[in-house]
């Protein structure tokens, strides 16, 4: 039978250490909404989402109450819109109309964000995909909770450098289109390599074509719990440290598994995966940076950071994987700068630089995330950053991504405010040495030799 100390430990995790379930995300296939008329398409999309996800938020709240565990976000992912709307959308206006339909449907069911205004162009772009990408500045400026992602590369296909070059311009245009709001539009846009089909986190989540009609995916959190557990590991060796992280990750993930199964049962939608990521928030004590510092760094960003993060990421997976029947999504420690108090401080003090963050992305999910850069950074420099990240993902057979915000009108020394879980960030300096010639060559970087396994 349960004892009072076990019950106290769980409740302390929830109340003091900010243990929560970060998101219940319902993936919804829109493939059956496809048609050649944009108005009908919008109606089909609206109806399907508002029908399938009608009870999502209420169910999430009921589970929160029954188990006493906060479920911070309820979200929806949909099939990449380029696959659904290609036949109906012939102008940017058409794509904007579809985005508004998604925005309306998501607001109607009360979710926080909806992801999937996406294009998968890892080898090359179709005209429809190209058009969708070019609609993003308007889409992200005119809608409130629609998130977008573009997959520009994979280990199997190489990197579509035409898409990389285009995305540099698009990120800039989105920043300009939302200039009066610290370029907030870029917060809703992720450029991926090896994007997973079942990612429950935003802004990069979409419902991949390998998925069924609807699915429940859950993202857990818990850097605060790991951080607190590491207080007991102070001065101990790596074996003790690793055991502590694994044990904690197991406990956190079991809560996520429980919530996922319960949501799946109550909504009568199949359970998909648990995403094992440690996801920080800007709140004090809910920081991956703090965990790294407790492992032994004076400040995140200094020498030792990459090794500490590699170890943390591995132990979180080892502990979490036994706690869940299906693990997927991104599953690793997140390092979004603006969403992590200790990372914000380290970036502000100059200890954490983009080059170090890039090294860190080699050993964790997901990439250069939520990094505010000067508004006058050129499109080709942003493309170069995207290409570098994509190359890391392609060669290491892992997901990588870029979500940088070139904050219009601001430079190094300023800071940008995104609000809520998205946090705030000092503008970080970027190496402006030109890569214009490199990114404008056109064509694609071939898949690496180790991708040929057949």
């Amino acid at each position, binding site marked *: 039978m349960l004892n009072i100390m076990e019950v*106290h430990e769980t409740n302390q995790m929830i109340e003091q250490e900010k243990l929560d379930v970060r998101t219940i995300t319902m993936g919804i296939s829109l493939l059956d909404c496809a048609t050649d008329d944009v108005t009908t398409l919008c109606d089909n999309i609206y109806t399907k989402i508002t029908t399938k996800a009608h009870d999502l938020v209420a169910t999430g709240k009921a589970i929160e109450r029954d188990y006493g565990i906060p479920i911070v976000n309820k979200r929806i992912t949909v099939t990449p819109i380029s696959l659904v709307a290609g036949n109906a959308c012939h102008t940017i206006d058409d794509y904007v109309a579809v985005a508004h339909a998604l925005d309306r449907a998501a607001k109607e069911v009360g979710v926080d964000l909806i992801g999937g205004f996406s294009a998968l162009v890892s080898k090359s772009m179709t005209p429809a995909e190209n058009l969708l990408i070019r609609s993003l500045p308007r889409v992200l400026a005119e809608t409130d909770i629609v998130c977008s992602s573009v997959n520009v590369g994979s280990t199997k296909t190489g990197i579509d450098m035409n898409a990389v070059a285009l995305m540099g311009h698009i990120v800039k245009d989105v920043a300009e289109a939302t200039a009066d709001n610290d370029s907030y539009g870029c917060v809703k846009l992720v450029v991926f390599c090896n994007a997973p089909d079942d990612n429950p986190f935003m802004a990069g989540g979409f419902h991949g074509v390998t998925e069924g009609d609807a699915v429940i995916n859950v993202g857990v959190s818990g850097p605060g719990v790991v951080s607190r557990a590491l207080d007991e590991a102070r001065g101990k060796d790596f074996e003790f440290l690793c055991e502590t992280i694994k044990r904690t990750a197991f406990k956190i993930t079991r809560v996520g598994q429980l919530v996922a199964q319960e949501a799946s049962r109550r909504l009568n939608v199949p359970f998909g995966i648990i995403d094992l990521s440690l996801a920080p928030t800007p709140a004090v004590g809910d920081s991956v940076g703090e965990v790294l510092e407790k492992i032994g760094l004076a400040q995140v960003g200094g020498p030792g950071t990459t090794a500490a993060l590699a170890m943390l990421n591995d132990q979180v997976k080892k502990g979490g994987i036994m706690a869940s029947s299906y693990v997927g999504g991104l599953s690793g420690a997140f390092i979004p700068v603006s969403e992590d108090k200790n990372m914000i401080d380290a970036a502000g003090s100059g200890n954490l630089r983009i080059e170090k963050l890039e090294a860190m992305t080699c050993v964790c999910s997901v990439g250069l995330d939520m990094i505010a850069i000067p508004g006058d950074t050129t499109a080709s420099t942003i493309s170069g950053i995207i290409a570098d990240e994509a190359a890391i993902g392609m060669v290491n057979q892992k997901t990588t991504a870029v979500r940088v915000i070139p904050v219009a009108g601001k430079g190094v020394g300023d800071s940008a405010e995104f609000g809520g879980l998205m946090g705030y960030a000092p503008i970080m300096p970027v190496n402006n040495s030109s890569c214009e010639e490199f990114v404008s060559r056109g064509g694609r970087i071939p898949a690496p030799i180790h991708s040929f396994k057949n």
Partner: protein
Amino acid sequence: MNKAIITVVGQDTVGIIARVCTYLSKSNVNVLDISQTIIDGFFNMMMIIDYSDADKDFGTVVDDLEGLGEEIGVRIRCQREEIFTKMHRI
């Protein structure tokens, strides 16, 4: 059997258990086990209950107990048992 865990945390005072039990009795909720201890200077009580035959839905019990806690000046939570068993039992 539908088990849940009630926890009471706060300053010890006369009649906490009595008032919680009175509410449970009126709601036809069965108490299976009670334990209490002092953690970090605070009174901690845990009850394991069976709410299979409760005359109201579980959400109402949760809300009512939270309200009762506010009246008494302690924190009362009522959570379904699985969140604890999943975390602490393989």
